[in-house]
C-alpha cells in the first residue's frame, strides 16, 4: 500500500515533531501532571493534555479523532485501579481500553502509539517518565499516517 511505502521515507523526515494528546483524569493523572510541573520535572512540549473528570469519560471516539487529526500518539492516564475518585470508573476504563488497544493493534496500528497508564496524583515522576517514554517511542515510529485524515494539515 502506498501508505506503508511512504512510512519509511517519513521516518527520515527531518524535524519530525510528534504530537501526543493525553487525556488525564482530573483527580489523579492531571494532578500528577501538575505535580510534575511543581516539581519542575522535564518532559517535551509535544505532549498536550486534555482534562477529563475520570479516565472512564474517555470515549473511543476521542482517541480515534485525535489520530484522525494527526496526533502521532494518544495517552489515557487515570488513577490506579482501586483509587478511582469515582470508585469504579477506571475499572471500566481498564476493560474498554484493553479492548480498544488490542483492536487498534489488530488493524495494524503500532502498539506504542496508544498508551494507557495509571498515574496517581503523587506520581509526578512517573508522569514525566511515561510522557518521555511514549514520545521517544512515537518519535521512532515516525508520523501517524495510518489513521490520519488525508485532508488534515498541521
Amino acid at each position, binding site marked *: 500500500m502506498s501508505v506503508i511505502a511512504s512510512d519509511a521515507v517519513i521516518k527520515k523526515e527531518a524535524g519530525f515533531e510528534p504530537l501526543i494528546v493525553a487525556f488525564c483524569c482530573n483527580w489523579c493523572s492531571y494532578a500528577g501532571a501538575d505535580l510534575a510541573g511543581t516539581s519542575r520535572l522535564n518532559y517535551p512540549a509535544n505532549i498536550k493534555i486534555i482534562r477529563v473528570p475520570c479516565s472512564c469519560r474517555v470515549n473511543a471516539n476521542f482517541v480515534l479523532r485525535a489520530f484522525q*487529526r494527526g496526533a502521532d500518539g494518544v495517552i489515557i492516564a487515570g488513577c490506579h485501579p482501586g483509587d478511582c475518585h469515582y470508585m469504579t470508573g477506571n475499572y471500566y476504563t481498564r476493560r474498554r481500553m484493553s479492548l480498544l488497544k488490542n483492536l487498534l493493534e489488530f488493524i495494524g496500528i503500532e502498539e506504542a502509539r496508544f498508551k494507557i497508564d495509571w498515574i496517581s496524583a503523587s506520581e509526578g515522576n512517573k508522569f514525566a517518565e511515561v510522557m518521555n517514554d511514549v514520545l521517544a517511542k512515537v518519535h521512532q515510529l515516525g508520523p501517524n499516517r495510518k489513521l490520519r*485524515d488525508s*485532508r*488534515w*494539515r*498541521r
Partner: protein
Amino acid sequence: MKKIAKDRLSLLWPRIALNYQLFLPIAEEKVVNFSRWEEGAEVDLATLKTANSPKDIIFPQTETYLNFKQEGKRLELEMAGGRKDYLVFGVSPCDVASINLLDKVFLDEPVDQFYQEGRQKGVIIARACLNPAETCFCSSFKINPALAPAGADIATWDLGDSLLWEAQSEKGKELTADFDDLLEEVSREEQERLEQVKTGIADQLKDLPLVNLDPDLIEGGLNEIFASEIWEHLYRRCLGCAMCTYVCPTCHCYDLKDYDGNKCGERFRCWDSCMFSDFTMMAHGNPRTTQKERVRQRFMHKLVYYPNNYQAYACVGCGRCTEKCPVSLDMVKVIKKLGGERNEL
C-alpha cells in the same frame, strides 16, 4: 473493425496509462471492481458484473468543489476541478447506458461543471456482455448486451483469444489510431463469429429468469402508483441502508459538506442515499419521515419521475440490487408488484 490479441493487452495497459488514468475491472480479495490500474494488478475481464458500477469514476463518491485556505481570520477560496484524462476499459452495455442516464441529469441546464469536465476528460471503452447473469434484466430496458450503446467511445467483444475493437466516436477513432501498432485487422471469419455470438446472446436472454419483466406494462399514472398499496407491504423489510443506491449505476443523489482541515479545507459533494433517514435533512427534519416513503421515493424516481422528465427509465437492469440487497427488496420485486411482467406464454 479491429482486434487486439488478449496476450497483447498487457502491452496495451501501460500504453494507455501513459496518457490516461486507466481504470479496469481488477480483482482484490475476491471482489472485482473498477480500480486504477498499476503494473501487476489482477485484471479480470471475465467478470462482467463488477460489485460496484463504474459510476464512481465519472461521478466520484466524494468530489471536491472548492478548496479554501485560512490564514488568521482571512479565508481564501479556490475552485477545484482540473480532472486528469482518464479511460475506463471494459464497461458493460448496461453501465454505458447508465452513464447516458446520468448525462441527462447533470448535463441538462443548469450544467454541472464538475460532471461535465469529468465526462469530457473521460474515454469509455465498452465490453459487450456475452454472458448475462441470472440477475440481469437489461433487455427489459431495451438494452442489447451484445452491443455498446452510444456513449461508449469504443466497443469491444471478447472472442476468447482476442478482443474485437470498434471505435464509436471521434475520441474512439483517435485512440484506435494511437494504438494501431497493437491492433490487427479482423478477418471475415472473426466477423462471422461475432455475429454468431450476438445471436447466441439473444438466445441466452430468452432463457434468463427475469426476461419477462417489462416496465412498460405498469399501468396508472404518477398519482395512482404513488398511492398504490404495494408500498405498504414492500417497505417493511427494508433495512434503510444505502446499498441499493450506492451499487446502482443510475442513482445520483448527493450531499454537500465542508471539511475543516485546519488552515485549509474543502467543500465537497458526496453520494447520499434517499434510503437514509437524514437524507435531504432540513431544519424541520426529513420530509420523508418513514421508510415506506423513502422506499417509494426511490422506485418512483426510477420508474415515474425520471421518465416524466427525461423519457427514459432510470434503471438499466444491471441486477446489482437484485444480487446485493440483503433483504431482496429490489427493482424486480417492485416492477412485478406494479404489474410490469409479461405473462409467460
